[in-house]
């Protein structure tokens, strides 16, 4: 078969179609690009809101905006930049790049990517529509209670945030599972973990962080929405709740979030700097250790946003020291990048200009971060413009500058055109000068005492500094307009090139650009690290079919490998284009909109529609069989393999779910020992009846397969329903609300257990059975814990009183 014939056959199999068929596209280049495009639109919207903020603050007592509008503007600016721009942008970049860097033809669950994309766009649209209609969230991007509780935010503004952001977060969690499974299982033959390109290491750690970072916020959003909608007093101190619980749950997500945003950008830097220094990355081993360290340490910092809340000094010291310690792995990376440049011959082309911008700005932001990690200093600067300046130095320096470098570096891959660089330098210097003009003086504004989120002020010194910041803001905007024009010119008038324009060693350049829908004509077998290859030589060989799965069979095939050694182990067959992700996202949108407008029967109908549509996803699967994988190998398809991608995905889903459950138990325990008025006058709950669901759950733990779990999970569900019915006073005290939430959590898991067990009993595929069994065991543990927890809580409450 000639390369042209192979291309035609593979393209026929992998192509998503034209016209309305584009809505059914699930292929990673399409979905990856789709994630990035609206992210940039949201970036523009967020930037325009920043201009409105700077206009308001340019002079004291400005009549430009009234305070309510100003509150909506700064809330939406932060929310858009964090939830609708930064995270989705790097998710899109990762989806576009990872398969190509790892030697796969697609991500592990293309329909899940597409579903996540639609959820993101719809959730983001809800937030923007609210902004246009004047009912946007207005309690700050971190939505602190009690300001965001129904007493002080009575409209739907806060509901829009809680439901819209949670809708968007579906895409983040689905992307986390998608990336973890894809990086671990879908790689080129021979690409062991230690041969992965460094970007994949970063994304592996980031995906793991997202998996355990997002559930606390999702849980917190559900609890706050339950308080607003059903008057369950989790955060109301007059009824046994505590506003600080929200801060804990929010920052359990919120601080790792900063590193979730920074690490992909650091992955970009670790990829670009060696290429532009014409050498290998110095300290690969230390960098791998550093990103693992950052992944863990970043979860031990959340209370440094709460230093002023009255937590005992000893506890504060743990968070203060951890906050300072996290600078060390960051420094290791920065010194590795400097050493890479020092040992190579750096070319200061446009991407490297933005890398230089990163170094200056991010290091400044990191140093002020260490200052804020010290409790005495933080108490002085807390909630002032110093913090605003710090976070912009970190986030713009640590994300926007590297991602701009990434845009210049990989846009040629997407478009097949190289930069023409008419405006590149002017754009960079305008942004760099404008940014520092905006935020450098803002440190001083903060140290002089100007609180953040204030819409007006009187001090004449503050006015001078704010005026300079506002001018800087407009200069920055002009810079970004120049950058947008430069990138548009690249897309429109850039110079075409053959292959690998930057002389990189990455596998993603071993293909024609723009890339074909299937990425690789044949899956390579590697005996070197994935970022030290010779794409110019390797590309034609792969196009000629020298590799795995070079003979098209009519299915979308890619190679599955052993996670550690990279030894080929299965042929993963991926789904064809489908409208199901769009339809399922529309139904999911129905759930969120019904909750937003409080049409609860419609929410139930939409939920049933979502579950039904997800069941349709399982139609048309391959039968378990052995397949010729090429290069003399015969491999099982994924359905015949004992550890298919779907089983790995369920393991990660369980990990994310367990984090949410642990957060719920932590929340109840926190209220018990910290909130006022505990224990309630009459302890809620049905006493020993609470243990009822534990009995069938224990049976499920012993027999998680066959028809037994269907019966036992039904019994557990009935048990939780009985417990819930007998728990009195849910709206009167947080103790009853918390115990009800735990019972609902257990019941929901039992219900899903019935669904999975029934499905696996019906289909009886080996993968169906193992996936269901994993869930049954987990749901069993949840049920046993949920049954015993009320006794532990009561013991704790009695002890505290």
């Amino acid at each position, binding site marked *: 078969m000639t390369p042209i014939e192979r291309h035609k056959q593979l393209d026929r199999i992998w192509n998503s179609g034209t016209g309305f068929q584009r809505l059914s596209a699930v292929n990673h280049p399409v979905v990856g690009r789709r994630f990035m495009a609206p992210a940039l639109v949201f970036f523009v919207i967020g930037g325009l809101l920043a201009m409105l903020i700077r206009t308001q603050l340019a002079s004291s007592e400005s009549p430009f905006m009234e305070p309510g509008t100003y509150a909506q503007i700064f809330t939406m600016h932060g929310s858009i930049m964090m939830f609708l721009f930064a995270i989705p942008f790097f998710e899109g970049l990762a989806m576009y790049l990872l398969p190509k860097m790892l030697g796969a033809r697609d991500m592990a669950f293309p329909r899940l990517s597409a579903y996540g994309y639609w959820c993101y766009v719809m959730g983001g649209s809800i937030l923007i529509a609210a902004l246009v209609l004047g009912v946007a969230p207005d309690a700050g991007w971190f939505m602190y209670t009690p300001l965001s509780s129904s007493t002080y935010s009575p409209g739907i503004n806060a509901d829009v945030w809680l439901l819209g952001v949670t809708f968007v977060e579906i895409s983040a969690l689905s992307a986390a599972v998608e990336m973890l499974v894809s990086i671990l299982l879908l790689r080129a033959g021979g690409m062991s*973990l*230690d041969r992965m390109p460094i970007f994949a290491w970063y994304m592996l750690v980031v995906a793991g962080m997202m998996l355990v970072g997002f559930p606390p916020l999702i849980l917190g959003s559900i609890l706050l929405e339950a308080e607003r909608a059903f008057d369950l007093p989790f955060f109301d101190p007059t009824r046994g709740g505590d506003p600080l619980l929200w801060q804990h749950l929010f920052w359990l997500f919120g601080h790792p979030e900063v590193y979730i945003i920074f690490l992909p950008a650091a992955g970009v830097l670790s990829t670009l700097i060696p290429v532009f220094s014409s050498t290998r990355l110095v300290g*690969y*081993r*230390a960098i*791998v*250790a550093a990103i*693992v*360290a950052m*992944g*863990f*340490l970043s*979860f*031990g910092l959340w209370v440094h946003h709460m230093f002023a809340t009255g937590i*005992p*000094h*000893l*506890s504060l*010291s*743990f968070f203060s*020291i*951890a906050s300072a*310690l996290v600078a*060390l*792995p960051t420094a290791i990376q920065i010194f590795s990048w400097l050493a890479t440049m020092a040992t190579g011959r750096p070319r200061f082309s446009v991407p490297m200009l933005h890398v230089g911008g990163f170094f200056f700005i991010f290091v400044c932001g990191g140093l002020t971060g260490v200052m804020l990690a010290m409790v005495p200093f933080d108490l002085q600067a807390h909630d002032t413009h110093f913090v605003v300046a710090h976070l912009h130095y970190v986030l713009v320096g640590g994300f926007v500058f590297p991602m701009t470098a990434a845009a210049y570096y990989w846009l040629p891959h997407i478009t097949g055109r190289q930069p023409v660089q008419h405006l590149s330098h002017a754009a960079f210097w305008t942004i760099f000068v404008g940014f520092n003009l905006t935020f450098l003086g803002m440190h001083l504004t903060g140290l002089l005492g100007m609180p953040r989120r204030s819409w007006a002020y009187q001090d004449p010194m503050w006015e001078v500094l704010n005026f300079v910041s506002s001018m800087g803001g407009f200069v920055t905007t002009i810079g970004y307009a120049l950058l947008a024009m430069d990138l548009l010119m690249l897309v429109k008038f850039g110079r075409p090139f053959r292959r690998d324009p930057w002389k990189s060693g990455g596998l993603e350049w071993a293909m024609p650009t723009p890339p074909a829908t299937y990425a690789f004509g044949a899956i390579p077998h590697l005996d070197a690290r994935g970022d030290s290859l010779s794409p110019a030589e390797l590309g034609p060989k792969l196009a000629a079919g020298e590799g795995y799965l070079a003979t098209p069979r009519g299915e979308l095939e890619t190679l599955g490998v052993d*996670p*550690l050694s990279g030894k080929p182990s299965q042929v993963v067959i991926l789904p064809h284009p489908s409208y199901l992700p769009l339809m399922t996202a529309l139904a999911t949108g129905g759930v969120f909109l019904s909750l937003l407008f409080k049409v609860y029967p419609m929410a139930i109908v939409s939920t049933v529609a979502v579950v039904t549509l997800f069941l349709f996803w399982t139609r048309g699967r391959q039968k378990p069989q052995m397949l010729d994988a090429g290069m003399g190998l015969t491999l099982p398809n994924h359905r015949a393999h004992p550890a298919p991608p779907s089983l790995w995905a369920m393991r990660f889903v369980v990990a994310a779910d367990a984090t949410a459950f642990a957060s719920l138990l932590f929340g109840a325990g926190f209220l018990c*020992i*910290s909130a006022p008025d505990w224990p309630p006058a009459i302890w809620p709950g049905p006493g020993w009846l609470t243990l009822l669901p534990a009995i069938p759950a224990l049976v499920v733990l012993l027999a998680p397969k066959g028809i037994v779990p269907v019966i036992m999970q039904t019994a557990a569900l009935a048990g939780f329903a009985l417990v819930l019915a007998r728990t009195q006073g849910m709206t009167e005290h947080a103790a009853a609300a918390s115990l009800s939430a735990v019972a609902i959590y257990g019941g929901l898991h039992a219900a899903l257990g019935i669904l999975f067990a029934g499905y696996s009993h019906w289909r009886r595929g080996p993968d169906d059975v193992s996936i269901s069994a994993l869930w049954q065991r987990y749901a069993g543990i949840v049920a046993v814990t949920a049954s015993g927890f009320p006794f532990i809580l009561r013991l*704790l409450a009695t*002890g*505290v009183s």
Partner: protein
Amino acid sequence: MKDVTLLVSGFVIWSGAFLLIYALHATGCALGVRAEVLRALLILAFAVFVSAGFVPLWLAIRRRRGLLGQSAVIATVAALVATVLTFSTVLWLGLC
């Protein structure tokens, strides 16, 4: 898989120490546990986790081969140092 396990195990121990020592401190203060008893419990937990941190370090040094093995040594040393630094304040700082 041992290399990957060793790569993360030092910081898993650090995370466990963080959760347990923070929870122990908060609960102890809320329950009104006597200061000397609470400090003894915190120091005991601190000692247990520091000792536990030596186990993956010892295993990583023994297995030290390949890129992942070397990264695992660096990560376990870093985790042990982080454990000592983060929680050493239980020895001297005021409790509640």
